[in-house]
């Protein structure tokens, strides 16, 4: 037995890493087990994946360009109705654009909005919440009062006013929605940090000499992730709904962008003449939001140990 201490320790590190990988894999397997128990969640996930594929490959899938106007085909009904054309499966809008193609490109906008808003709200919210929960005292009080103030306004109204002040447009709308969704992340993170910070493993890390940043981001944060993931999913669907509402009110994405809410706003005056220009964009919003909410419910069941069936 003449192995050097160095080789010995590297073997140990490798063994520990392997075990930790196994543990992660076991955790994921357990998570998937609980998640897949929920049939709705699996269906929601499947629909969501289809939407992602649609959005990514929109240029390949869409039969027409989203802003191409066919002068001879204004308000053509869907193909199964009298007067429908095979060229336009879901009909055309008042200026002769293909509904189906616009809906397909619209998926890009909705998913993009959801991703950006959740990223901004989550990052901002987690950092602010970590600071509030970790620092306590005056900083905490100050931060939480500001969050209370934001929460005192109905989110859509505040977003509407912020966009009205900044000027209409998709970017400003996303920014406004991120602002109004952020307090939820701050509150959740802070509550989780408060629950975790006096636990033994955090105290141990502190005694071992971990700095503030390491304690906040590497020690505490990973243990607060479950509620944040669920909230992120809910915020994703909220962001899509709110952005569509702002588009509908005329301050979100601007025409001729094929954003679903904006499409609805453009179609409003035709509701009694051409049902399809109103029905399909809204249906697209509903299906997307519903799919994400189904996933959110499944995630909550799978990640929340209190609700786990034992």
């Amino acid at each position: 037995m003449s192995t050097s201490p160095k080789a010995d320790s590297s073997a140990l590190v490798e063994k520990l890493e392997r075990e930790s990988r196994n543990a992660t894999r076991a955790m994921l397997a357990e998570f998937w087990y609980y998640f897949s128990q929920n049939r709705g969640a699996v269906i929601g996930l499947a629909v969501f994946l289809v939407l992602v594929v649609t959005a990514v490959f929109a240029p390949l899938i869409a039969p027409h360009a989203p802003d191409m106007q066919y002068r001879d085909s204004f308000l053509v009904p869907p193909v199964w109705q009298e007067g429908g054309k095979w060229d336009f499966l879901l009909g055309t809008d008042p200026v002769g654009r293909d509904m189906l193609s616009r809906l397909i490109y619209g998926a890009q906008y909705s998913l993009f909005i959801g991703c950006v808003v959740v990223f901004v709200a989550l990052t901002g919210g987690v950092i602010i919440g970590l600071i509030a929960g970790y620092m306590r005292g005056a900083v905490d009080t100050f931060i939480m009062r500001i969050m209370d103030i934001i929460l005192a306004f109905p989110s859509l109204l505040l977003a509407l006013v912020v966009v009205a002040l900044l000027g209409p447009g998709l970017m400003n709308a996303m920014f406004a929605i991120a602002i109004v969704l952020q307090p939820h992340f701050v509150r959740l993170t802070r509550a989780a940090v408060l629950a975790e910070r006096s636990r033994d493993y955090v105290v141990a890390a502190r005694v071992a000499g971990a700095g503030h940043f390491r304690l906040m981001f590497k020690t505490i944060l990973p243990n607060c992730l479950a509620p944040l993931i669920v909230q992120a999913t809910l915020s994703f669907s909220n962001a899509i709904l709110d952005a569509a509402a702002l588009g509908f009110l005329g301050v979100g994405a601007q025409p001729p962008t094929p954003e679903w809410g904006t499409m609805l706003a453009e179609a409003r005056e035709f509701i009694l003449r051409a049902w399809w220009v109103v029905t399909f964009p809204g249906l697209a919003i509903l299906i997307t939001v519903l799919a994400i909410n189904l996933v959110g419910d499944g995630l909550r069941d799978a990640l929340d140990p209190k609700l786990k069936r034992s």
Partner: protein
Amino acid sequence: MFRFFLGRLGLLIPTFLGVTIVAFGLVRILPADPLELLAGERGMSPERKAELMRQMGMDLPIWEQYLAYLGNLFQGDLGTSFASKRPVLDEFLQLFPATVELSFCAILIAVAIGIPLGILAAVKRGSFIDQTVMGTALIGYSMPIFWWGLLLIILFSGILQWTPVSGRISLMYFFPQVTGFMLIDSLLSGEKGAFLSAVRHLILPSIVLATIPLAVIARQTRSAMLEVLGEDYVRTARAKGLPPHRIIGLHALRNALIPVITTIGLQVGVMLAGAILTETIFSWPGIGKWLVDSIARRDYAVVQGGLLLIAAIIMLVNLIVDILYGLVNPRIRHN
């Protein structure tokens, strides 16, 4: 109880002051100059502008302006609408009953349908009924209500022609405003058919506005009920041989309703946000439509005042809910 009330009120004051700062600040960081909006396209001379700024106190330091704003606020002065030249508070009070009427009917629908459905789903947990109710509730929760409103208009106003498309009452009827609530005023007027017309105008917007709160209340009632049904005292009641309707109606429901009350209170904010969309779709002359129109007209005094009043109402409702909560649940009060 009084100390509990004071404590809650004390928490609200800093938040309310913060809300006034936000309402005040939002209009100050405008990219557009309100005075230029006032002048319109012809513009105004620098001298005139300076004079107006002095008149409106806009040459003072920002904190003095804020204090003046706060002072006016406590005297009930929320500024004057650029568009109508009327005090913002007067306009608000004139339009508010329409929104209250709509929201009240909506919350009534949401509670009257949501709570029984939630109880039913909880009692029949895992059954086909439970799955249908919860599936429908999730659809309602995910609904873009502005689209839902349009769909209902297509069906009920377009195809079936049962309900009118917009407004609060048919133009045939004209009677003085007494309470501002169309249902009551139409009854008071004594005109034949006026009440029915008001109901027909109210029904679609109420359904649209009720959709999301209904879904939330049904989901919340179900989960609160499930939690309570697992408690020891329910098991005891069962063991005593009480009939199921007594167990559910008396022992379980009363305790399950406590968190549901909070949920209903929280829906007021959701309602007021939903009113913005619902009133726009149905041309309902309430504060939601007023705010959207004012934003489009860049009538910032109205936006500022409306934002503040709505936030104040929501805070007030939350306070009332908190107090109710303390009344029904002594544990909260003494904590």
